[in-house]
């Protein structure tokens, strides 16, 4: 039993889960056709940064989000953009979203990596996802205000919109510097 308590104690300081970017090579080519390499930067946040993020997204960070990974995209040695990833609960399971930012930190493209929604085709459609293009940290990204949801898939639409909004905020607050 002592071992169990010791492990429980250790466990309080561990655990982190992030959205796994399953197929970087393929996605980078879709997001940045001229990319030649990428590298990932892992950023942890302090208490102040956490409060700022939570205030702006109007929601607490998930308990497993103890760190965020930003993917820097390069064309030869020139930085051409950034990729952010996020997982949010949809109507029928997790929706994994991949967000490509240009060098001005505006959304260049959004991809859905994995979902199990009934309106899958509509959710992955350019008609829906192109609504996020050129959005930045300062813009309002909200369903029924600036983003038209998919009829019958409101929860999934909201999950995608929230993922984009949240990750733009997280990236703006944490940036990349350690």
């Amino acid at each position, binding site marked *: 039993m002592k*071992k*169990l308590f010791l*492990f*429980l104690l*250790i*466990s*309080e300081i*561990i*655990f*982190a*889960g992030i959205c796994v970017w399953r*197929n*970087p*090579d*393929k996605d*980078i080519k879709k997001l940045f056709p001229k*990319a*030649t*390499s*990428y*590298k*990932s*930067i*892992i950023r942890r946040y302090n208490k102040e940064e956490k409060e700022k993020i939570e205030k702006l997204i109007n929601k607490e960070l*998930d*308990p*497993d989000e103890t*760190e965020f990974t930003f993917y820097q995209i390069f064309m030869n040695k020139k930085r051409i953009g950034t990729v952010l990833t996020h997982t949010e*609960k949809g109507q*029928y*399971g997790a929706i994994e979203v991949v967000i490509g930012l240009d060098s001005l930190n505006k959304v260049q493209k959004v991809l859905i990596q*994995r979902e*199990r*929604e*009934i309106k*899958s085709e509509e959710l*992955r459609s350019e008609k829906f996802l192109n609504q996020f293009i050129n959005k930045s940290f300062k813009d309002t990204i909200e369903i029924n205000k600036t983003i038209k949801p998919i009829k019958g898939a409101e929860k999934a639409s909201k999950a995608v919109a929230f993922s984009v909004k949240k990750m733009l905020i997280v990236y703006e607050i944490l940036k990349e510097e350690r």
Partner: protein
Amino acid sequence: MILLFLINFSYKIDGYFTLRYDKEIYLYGSEVNFRFIFGEDYDRLLIFLQIPFTSHFNHHFWQHYGDGYIHLKSPMGNLNLKIGRFDIPFSLLKYYDTHFLIFQPLYEDALGYKKNIGTTLFGYLKDFLFDINCSFKDKKLANPIFTLRFGLDKEKIKTGFSFLKEREKFISLDMNLIHLLFDFQSELIYSWDKKKGIFLTINFTPFWELETKFSYKYWEKENNFNLELAKDWEIFELRGALNYLLEKEIRPIIQLNFKI
């Protein structure tokens, strides 16, 4: 002459532990994972170390050890080299996360092992994947095991053909298909000794974020059915299963996964 070595370093720790009720309550397994990433280009070299306290760790503390490997990858991640101890890329083990699962796929029955010490070269070209693996069951590096897997990875379908050669030879066909709200996973394994195995599982979330899973497994004339319901509350996950081995009994299992 001045030699300048620039080493950037980052690390991550995560883990879980699992309590299970199966006729009695016991600590079923736990795990701590350490991930070290080196280099100016952070992604190029990764060292992963996993310390699991698996299966009945109450009685066998520290007895088991898990993954420990070095992972080198090309700038775009399409060519990778992994050296150390890790899951062998055979059949569903290539992408099926067996953590937390009450009902495991066929590797347990067919191979009797999941992880080995060895090296694997893997990568992808457009939608095509390949894995070439050579591993050993023990530290003496005797009796090599060769594995080849060729796969196709499309948006909603993943499929692969695997070949494994040890003392016995195995071939396998695996598939993961996502259609509407259903996530369908399957594998067929056949050995040169004419052993046959089928594993099927359908996973979906009908309502209340309740993950529902129906599974069927056939191996060596034995049929096994499993119905599993899981609810994730972010800090912990509650998983209940009704396991039915044909002509035997229905076995209820309740599992609590803490993800602190």
